[in-house]
């Protein structure tokens, strides 16, 4: 008994000081040699508010594009395709190798007219879309279709997804080594204009606008096209859909292809922002963030994936300014937990398969 009491007293003494620390940090950021384990820097948050917002939207767009892949597959198969992050990494390498193939050297600053650079970027994007799209379809064929044929339980799909994720990751590591690839930056970020004092770079504008455009295309595809109608029919009631002439296997293939293509686009934007990002395990955290974004917005819901991605990107940036750099990911996942506590189906709820009745 005496020991716990003593421990409690120690803790009681510690807590006031750390609260005091917080108060001091709040009043004026301390310049100390040892970083405090947590900041509460409202001043920095206010200072960097717009910069964080724009930067967060750019990051969030990448999350959203990847999240669409999770959400589409979930809508159709009720499967969390954990290997989707590796589909994204394959896209990142496709972009990187295309850059190499086009003759760009790591570290060198390309001296080309802007039009040529844009053309090269578009080319790399198209290669990444094709490679990721095919990889996603291939993954479905090899990993999931055989299970479906045998009516495997859902758990088998889940562990297969995780296994496929690790397998692809390790194959990339064996192939390219575990060090990140060299930096190839075709388009250096340069401020174009400022919003409320926050500089907006050309990259951020391109990424945000192009991602929104991709989202609109994906959304129209699912909601307005015949193939999208098939996807929604299968999502709502697979058995009835097949009895109404919908080819479920083809719908599943198209769904994976669309998710892969969007991951390929995300890969291009990611590597434009973080040129040293081509590394075998680069998809892990990003994949989890994108999955978080999908759940945040309401998994199975396209608009939810967009909204979740953008919110996640922005809020984690705010958190980084407020609490300190290491808190970025903590903020992201705490946000997820908080939202799920109040809205278990995510912000917009399930929609691709809503009213399954």
């Amino acid at each position, binding site marked *: 008994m005496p020991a716990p009491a003593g421990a409690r007293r120690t803790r009681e003494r510690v807590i006031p000081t750390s609260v005091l620390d917080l108060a001091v940090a709040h009043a004026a950021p301390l310049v100390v040699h040892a970083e405090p384990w947590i900041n509460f820097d409202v001043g920095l948050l206010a200072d960097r508010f717009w910069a964080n917002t724009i930067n967060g939207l750019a990051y969030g767009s990448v999350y959203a594009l990847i999240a669409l892949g999770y959400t589409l597959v979930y809508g159709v198969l009720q499967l969390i395709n954990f290997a989707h992050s590796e589909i994204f990494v394959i896209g990142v390498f496709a972009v990187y190798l295309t850059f190499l193939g086009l003759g760009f050297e790591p570290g060198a600053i390309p001296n080309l007219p802007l039009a040529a650079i844009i053309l090269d970027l578009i080319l790399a994007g198209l290669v990444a879309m094709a490679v990721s799209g095919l990889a996603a379809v291939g993954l479905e064929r090899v990993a999931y279709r055989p299970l479906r044929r045998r009516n495997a339980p859902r758990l088998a799909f889940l562990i297969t997804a995780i296994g496929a994720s690790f397998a692809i990751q390790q194959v990339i590591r064996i192939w390219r080594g575990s060090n990140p690839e060299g930096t190839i930056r075709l388009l250096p970020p340069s401020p174009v204009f400022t919003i409320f004092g926050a500089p907006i770079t050309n990259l951020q504008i391109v990424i945000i606008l192009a991602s929104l455009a991709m989202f609109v295309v994906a959304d129209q595809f699912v909601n307005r096209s015949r*193939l999208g109608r098939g996807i*929604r029919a299968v999502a709502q009631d697979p058995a009835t859909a097949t009895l*109404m002439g919908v080819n479920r296997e083809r719908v599943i293939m198209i769904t994976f292809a669309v998710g892969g293509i969007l991951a390929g686009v995300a890969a291009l934007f990611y590597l434009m922002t973080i040129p040293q990002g081509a590394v075998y395990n680069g998809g892990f955290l990003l994949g989890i963030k994108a999955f978080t974004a999908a759940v945040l917005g309401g998994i199975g819901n396209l608009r939810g994936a967009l909204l979740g991605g953008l919110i996640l990107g922005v809020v984690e940036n705010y958190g980084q300014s407020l609490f300190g750099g290491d808190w970025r990911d903590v903020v992201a996942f705490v946000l997820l937990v908080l939202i799920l506590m109040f809205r278990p189906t995510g912000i917009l709820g399930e929609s*691709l398969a809503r*009213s399954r009745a």
Partner: protein
Amino acid sequence: MSEPSSTDTSLDTPPSEEGLLESLEHMDAAERAEHDAAVSASVAPERDFSVAKGETLLAVDGLTVRFGGLTALDDVSFDVRRGEILGLIGPNGAGKTTCFNIMTGVYRPTSGDILLEGRSLARMKRYKIIQTGVARTFQNIRLFGAMTALENVVVGTDARHRTSVPGALLRLPRHRREEREAVEKAMALLEFVGIADRAADKATALPYGYQRRLEIARALATEPKLLCLDEPAAGFSASEKDALSELILKIRDDGYTVVIVEHDMRVVLGVTDRLVVLDFGRKIADGIPDEVRRDPAVVAAYLGGDLDEESAP
């Protein structure tokens, strides 16, 4: 994402369903008559009238289905003839719905075969069966709840689309034309079954009777040679049943062949040309309704009760 935004016509959207409805309201009698003619032409396009009615369309041949130790169907054989309405009746658990499930590929037969115009359906993929020409409705309504009534029917028409996936992605002219035709046809089918006024509503928002009719429209949209109706009158009032019987006869008169599973004897005797009676998975009678209802085996199966009194389950 599932809101039917009829105002949003940004990307190559099909003609708005509400626009179509509005134009219907503003038609005078002559225009309306012309429109109705167009509707019926669209509902039953180029039906195969050249083939003599009465020829065998579907042949069920020695069909046996076992689930573990339970024999759901035991060596059942019968024919469905082109242009007729065949009633498949029998007490609960007789194997009627199982028979439907075999016809549409939900279950696979343990032995025996089922042939549509000589093509075996027994091992065919479900979506292929639809393309071959068998469509169905469900005892428990199974619509795509988050889609509009119109969209539900358009899903049915998709079975007949010929554009390839790349063609659809690139929105080639043929794909666009097929999409437009699909919406027009779906609208015509909704008019045909009498629920066009709610075309833009979500399927789950429709009244029960509308949902049943929507299922029929969706099945017809696949251009079936054989339409299977699984207890279409379940839960209907007497007047609704009469309207349904009328609709079924109208479908037959448009050149479709219909198989109907139904408990309500008034509907069955009112519409069917021929009856097949199942009991405990075996066929016990087959013939025109007047003969079948006097068949001693049938009477016995219905526990001595008169067929006319055997209504709702």
